[in-house]
């Protein structure tokens, strides 16, 4: 509590600095330890007393201990452990009876846990999928001890590669095992019937037959098995089943189940599929260039956030309307709906710690937070209608309240030329010296040209002479002939009196190894001692750099340095292929002192 109060005074100061802000800093607790996503946040009047609570499907620090937390105001009201990591949380009204307290649904693994009045009420499990008949047959044979585990393994592997229906968890587990563990596993599991179950990836609610705020809603589940299920709110039977070409990760619904509805499902293959009532398969498909990170419907526009740091707006028929570029990666998205003003906008939590609010293409507001926000939720919390709840990557909780007087206006973007155009080019100034020089050039241009040309001839001559000389004595460290492509450079390390001399020799041909090379050092024997002044080079494979090292010991006690020459020779030829000159540094060792 002490930490919370001190942070509150901090935020109070920030608020006074930023008097024009549209948000009131209600609460900031960096130690709240809430690790969740936008899909696992839900706001609901769980006790029917007009005080809205926040439901959090918390993954726990490091995703280790999943918990269901219910927050009231800034504090946690109840906390209970969950059997598996939550995938989504939603609140919905199950039936028309009074009192109209909403039920809380939490999708986790293959089950939906329904809580009423914060007590476990119902557990819905996904229907089991039919197993592969071939696989079933194999396990039956194993049960009768007709086949040994090794044959079973081979045949299951055959099924895994060919069959369309994937294997059950039991078979997959069996295939992972070592030979020694197989026998025990088969004897333990052969009597059990094989099951194939899928898990829920996403969940949302869809109004059943009324569009009212307090109408009965159906749950819509997306499963790992590429299916969408619509559940009956009371009986938890499956009302509709739709199939998708890929695994859905984000769902957005509009309309009513009994009348007409549209389902938009963003999938792992980077497509958004749009389904309608009476269609078992997608009607429209939006292909994104990157994976979706969020899907929000604003009035009639579907807003998709992609991993390419951009928001795209689409119509319900899959026509692209607009694209907005973000300054950083999008971590989460959600809808901001201010009912009193009839405003619907998209919030996007960015990796640089900003939360941006967009109405279509127009940026309405930017909230800067101390840490990157990973989940966002806007709605009625406690007794305040326009509350924004954010949790940060570090597990902090930020609650902001929209001021009653705040109006979001589109910040009129700067029209006209971009600011870069007004920038002055850095053209250097010309001084008197330059003007005088041009005057001289104008007067004595011919002489200048002639002299320069003569000098250029001489320069070319000298360069050619020196080059021929270097070729003749193979002084250069890079061979020029196409026959022997080689590269050599030498490095001296150490302070002395002992130096480490490393030659890096590289074959620069594309695919021809070089055999039979020798390295020879030429040095003043009075000044330096080398253990091996002449050695063979291993076979040089093209592309690799071979470090060949020797130790050079400085013998002189006068601090004299000299040049050591390295020659690379071919066996049976006396002319070196290439050579390098190494300027040995001054020895700073005891010998010199």
């Amino acid at each position, binding site marked *: 509590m002490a930490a919370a109060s001190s942070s*509150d005074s901090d935020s109070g100061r920030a608020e006074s600095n930023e008097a024009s802000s549209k948000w009131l800093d*209600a609460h900031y607790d960096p130690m709240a330890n809430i690790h969740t996503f936008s899909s696992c946040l839900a706001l609901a009047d769980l006790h029917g007393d*007009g005080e809205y609570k926040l439901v959090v499907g918390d993954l726990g620090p490091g995703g280790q201990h999943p918990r269901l937390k219910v927050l009231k105001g800034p*504090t946690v009201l109840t906390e209970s452990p969950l059997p598996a990591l939550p995938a989504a949380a939603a609140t919905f009204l199950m039936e028309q009876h009074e009192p109209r307290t909403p039920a809380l649904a939490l999708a986790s693994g293959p089950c939906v846990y329904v809580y009423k009045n914060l007590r476990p009420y119902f557990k819905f499990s996904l229907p089991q999928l039919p197993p592969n008949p071939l696989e079933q047959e194999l396990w039956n044979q194993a049960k009768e001890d007709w086949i040994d585990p090794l044959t079973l393994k081979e045949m299951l592997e055959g099924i895994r590669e060919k069959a369309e229906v994937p294997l059950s968890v039991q078979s997959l587990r069996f295939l992972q095992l070592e030979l020694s563990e197989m026998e025990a596993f088969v004897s333990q599991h052969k009597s059990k019937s094989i099951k194939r179950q899928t898990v829920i990836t996403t969940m949302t609610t869809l109004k059943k037959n009324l569009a009212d705020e307090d109408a009965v809603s159906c749950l819509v589940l997306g499963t790992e098995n590429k299916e969408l299920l619509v559940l009956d709110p009371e009986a938890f039977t499956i009302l509709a089943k739709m199939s998708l070409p890929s695994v859905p990760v984000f769902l957005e619904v509009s309309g009513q189940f009994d009348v007409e509805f549209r389902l938009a499902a963003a999938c792992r293959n980077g497509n958004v599929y749009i389904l309608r009532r009476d269609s078992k398969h997608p009607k429209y498909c939006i292909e994104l260039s990157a994976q979706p990170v969020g899907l929000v419907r604003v009035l009639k526009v579907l807003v998709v956030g992609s991993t390419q740091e951009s928001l795209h707006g689409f119509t319900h028929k899959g026509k692209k309307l607009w694209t907005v570029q973000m300054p950083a990666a999008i971590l989460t998205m959600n809808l901001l709906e201010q009912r*009193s003003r009839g405003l619907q906008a998209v919030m996007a939590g960015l990796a640089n710690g900003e939360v941006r609010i967009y109405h279509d293409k127009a940026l309405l507001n930017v909230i800067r937070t101390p840490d990157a926000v990973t989940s966002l939720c806007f709605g009625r919390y406690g*007794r*305040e209608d326009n509350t924004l709840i954010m949790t940060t990557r570090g597990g902090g909780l930020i609650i902001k*309240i929209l001021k*009653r*007087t705040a109006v979001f206006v589109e910040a009129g973007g700067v029209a006209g030329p971009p600011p870069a155009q007004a920038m002055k080019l850095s053209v250097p100034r010309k001084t008197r010296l330059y003007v005088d020089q041009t005057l001289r050039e104008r007067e004595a241009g011919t002489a200048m040209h002639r002299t320069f040309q003569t000098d250029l001839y001489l320069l070319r001559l000298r360069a050619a002479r020196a080059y021929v000389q270097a070729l003749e004595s193979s002084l250069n460290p890079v061979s020029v002939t196409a026959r022997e492509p080689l590269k050599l450079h030498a490095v001296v390390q150490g302070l002395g009196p002992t130096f480490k001399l490393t030659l890096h020799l590289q074959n620069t041909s594309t695919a021809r190894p070089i055999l039979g090379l020798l390295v020879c050092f030429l040095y003043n024997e009075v000044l330096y001692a080398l253990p091996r002044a002449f050695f063979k080079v291993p076979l040089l494979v093209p592309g690799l750099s071979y470090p060949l090292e020797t130790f050079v010991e400085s013998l002189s006690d006068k601090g004299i340095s000299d040049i050591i020459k390295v020659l690379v020779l071919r066996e049976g030829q006396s002319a070196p292929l290439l050579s390098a000159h190494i300027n040995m540094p001054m020895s700073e060792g005891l010998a010199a002192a």
Partner: protein
Amino acid sequence: MGLLDRLSGLLGLKKEEVHVLCLGLDNSAKTTIINKLKPSNAQSQDIVPTRGFSIEKFKSSSLSFTVFDISGQGRYRNLWAHYYKEGQAIIFVIDSSDRLRMVVAKEELDTLLSHPDIKHGRIPILFFANKMDLRDAVTSVKVSQLLCLENSKGNHGIFVLVKP
């Protein structure tokens, strides 16, 4: 009614009739407080959220009060400004247990005090740090801290009262 007598003494009022505005967020128990100030035979038993506003009258030893009990719900808060001219004193009620909305109360108080009808009017304001009996209530000192009352908002006479 000792408190109200003190209030009237500070006001230095000689006249009989005093108009008091009772303000605060919704669910801060404005109506309940006014109800408790009324004589026991006039008190109503059940109190429902105020719609719009209601006018209550009661008497102390020397003064007769007319209280404008205005709803504190978000959509009715725009109406507050219409009564500022009539107000000779303000009762501002705060729900001490609603830690989250303290900023909203502060915001509303700031807009109230910066209103032209109130700003120069040297109106005494009585703050009720209400619902002190609740477990998660904060102390009156903390409430005045959170509302920044020590910054002496204008020239108003400010009293903080803790109602158990």
